[in-house]
């Protein structure tokens, strides 16, 4: 029973990270129809920003975290301006492939400018301390992950429901042309979507880096694939779907770690993807997605 509770929290905390990443993907997708394959590289950006600052002698973890979040948000805005604006009105495949090119560029920039080998970022390792709560062993990080993610989601909901630009973003998901006719600037709406997606990704990135204590140029690939899976599971473009999909994925992953013997550890990721494939076969539109028949009006 102890074990079960501990693993359940573990699942939720890993799932929270996936949810944050998946939310960023879903926001950008719903507003401008772009499948941002480069989303995982935001983790790398956060990691290398922290690494660079730490190398220059800034070791205060709080400052590092703030700096990483600011950098990632900025990079997200720059990418939107430089790479994704030219393909804004192109078919989804073009956007997907552009994003995939941007991802390759970022990965190789890390590789070229720092090192192909993993680098240690130990500044946040203090978060892995174990604390005892009601007889169970948890790490501070697990509480932070679940707590901060909840706050971030609450903040996002407030932003989308309570502000004018949030309203515009929700409307843009349905009909961008009308949003522009109402006098909202398309550039501002899309840039905001990217900034939010970068901000959410940077929070997830900090947790990832705190867990691993190290960074490498290709660290973003697997998390972003998982975030995609979370999105597809929940129904692509649906924000609640992204959260549910992410949490479900985290739980499934922890369940597999617990159930699969060490000998089959290599099949963990494979099994996650297999389960997702099976779910999609029976619910192609995802868990919270609405079934769309060909020719349905999407709005």
């Amino acid at each position: 029973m102890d074990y079960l509770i501990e693993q359940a929290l573990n699942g939720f905390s890993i799932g929270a990270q996936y949810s944050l990443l998946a939310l960023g993907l879903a926001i950008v997708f719903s507003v401008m129809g772009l499948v941002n394959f480069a989303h995982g590289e935001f983790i790398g950006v956060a990691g290398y920003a922290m690494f660079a600052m730490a190398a220059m002698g800034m070791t205060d973890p709080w400052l590092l975290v703030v700096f990483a979040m600011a950098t990632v948000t900025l990079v997200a805005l720059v990418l939107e301006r430089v790479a994704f604006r030219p393909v804004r009105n192109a078919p989804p495949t073009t956007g997907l492939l552009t994003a995939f090119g941007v991802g390759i560029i970022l990965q190789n920039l890390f590789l070229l400018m720092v090192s192909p080998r993993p680098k240690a970022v130990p500044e946040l390792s203090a978060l892995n301390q174990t604390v005892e709560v009601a007889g169970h062993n948890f790490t501070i990080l697990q509480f932070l992950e679940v707590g901060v993610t909840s706050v971030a989601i609450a903040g996002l909901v407030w932003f989308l429901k309570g502000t004018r630009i949030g309203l515009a973003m929700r409307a843009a998901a349905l009909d961008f042309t009308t949003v522009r006719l109402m006098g909202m600037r398309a550039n501002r709406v899309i840039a905001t979507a990217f900034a939010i997606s970068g901000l959410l990704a940077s929070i997830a990135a900090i947790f990832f880096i705190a867990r691993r204590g190290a960074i490498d140029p290709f660290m973003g690939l697997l998390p972003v694939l998982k975030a995609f899976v979370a999105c597809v599971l929940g129904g692509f473009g649906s924000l609640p779907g992204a959260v549910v999909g992410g949490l479900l994925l985290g739980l499934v992953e922890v369940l597999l770690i617990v159930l699969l013997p060490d000998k089959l550890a290599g099949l963990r990721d494979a099994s996650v993807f297999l389960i997702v494939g099976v779910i999609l076969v029976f619910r192609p539109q995802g868990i919270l997605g609405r079934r769309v028949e060909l020719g349905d009006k999407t709005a």
Partner: protein
Amino acid sequence: MNTIAFAERTRGSRPFLDARLAGNLRGSLWLVLIAAAIGLFVMAFGSPFIIRLTATAFINLIAVVGLQIFMGNSNVVNIGHAGFMALGAYFTAIFATPVMIKASMIPNAPFGLAGVEVGALYAFLISVALTSLIGLLTGLVLVRLAGIAATILTISILVIVQGVLVTWTDLFRGAQAFFGIPKVVGLGLIIVATAAVLVVARMFKGSRLGVQLRASATDPLAAEAMGVDVKRLRLIAWVLGSAVVGCAGALYALYAGTINARAFYFHTAFLTLAMAIVGGMRSVTGAMVGVALLTVLLELIRILEGGITVLGIAFPEMLGLSGLMLGVIIVAVMCFRSDGFMGGHEIEEVFAMLRRRLVAGKREG
């Protein structure tokens, strides 16, 4: 068949070879001629290094053409093809490697496969057949999905194949290299296979099935309304594509003699995908152009990457430069010419356009 085509046929200027078939054959012939000319030229004059590079490029071309068959015609981004390449290579390795070597490498192989040894040709055929079978099984699932969900499923296939290869050590040797595969394939055979594959892809694209599939990629609703069975067509293209990609893997195994599961993961998937994009994934000629452009370009950048001295200035080693350029090329192509270098045109169409322009120019001048 629609009425116009029917009327054309009954009018029938050519009773046994209709215009579309003839056009496709002409297109295939051009592709084969160019590929064979380049290949034979290299075989005759190339240094061993250039021959090696060309052989790898042709194997990549087979994979890219396999990718084009599905992705180019159905417009569903596929990232799972590297998995089928791995399957093709490993099945060939398991059947073709001499029993003696297998006794020390995979003595506990299931189904008594450690004691099975067939000729390289049979191993190749078995391997392509098995890969197609797996293509059929995955395809039945894949055609239920559309758009981004389908892409995610292709990624899943890649991750699952990799996971199985690395974990099932008794059969695939896991993360260790599988060696001792008879090296019976040289550049000559690879050229023959490439030519065959180019014809298959070009004929498929121009065939009735290919035309219908491309129509469904442009407008699924209109295609279905015309009675096109989109799922069935996608399945056919997927199985055909995976057979061709498996063929690339099998040839690679028989050419290199040593294979490693890690070589068939995201890196290969992205590289071949980039080749397809740069050339223009909607045409077979585009696949050829993309492979040629990126092979030459990346090889040049690799010289820079190792650190060279130009005019007395020593450039440092720059690992990752080739990857960086690959990304820059993809983004640039997508931003400025999203249809790729060939813009979805085949080579004979480009010739026809040039000829028309030339004739028009003469008339004016």
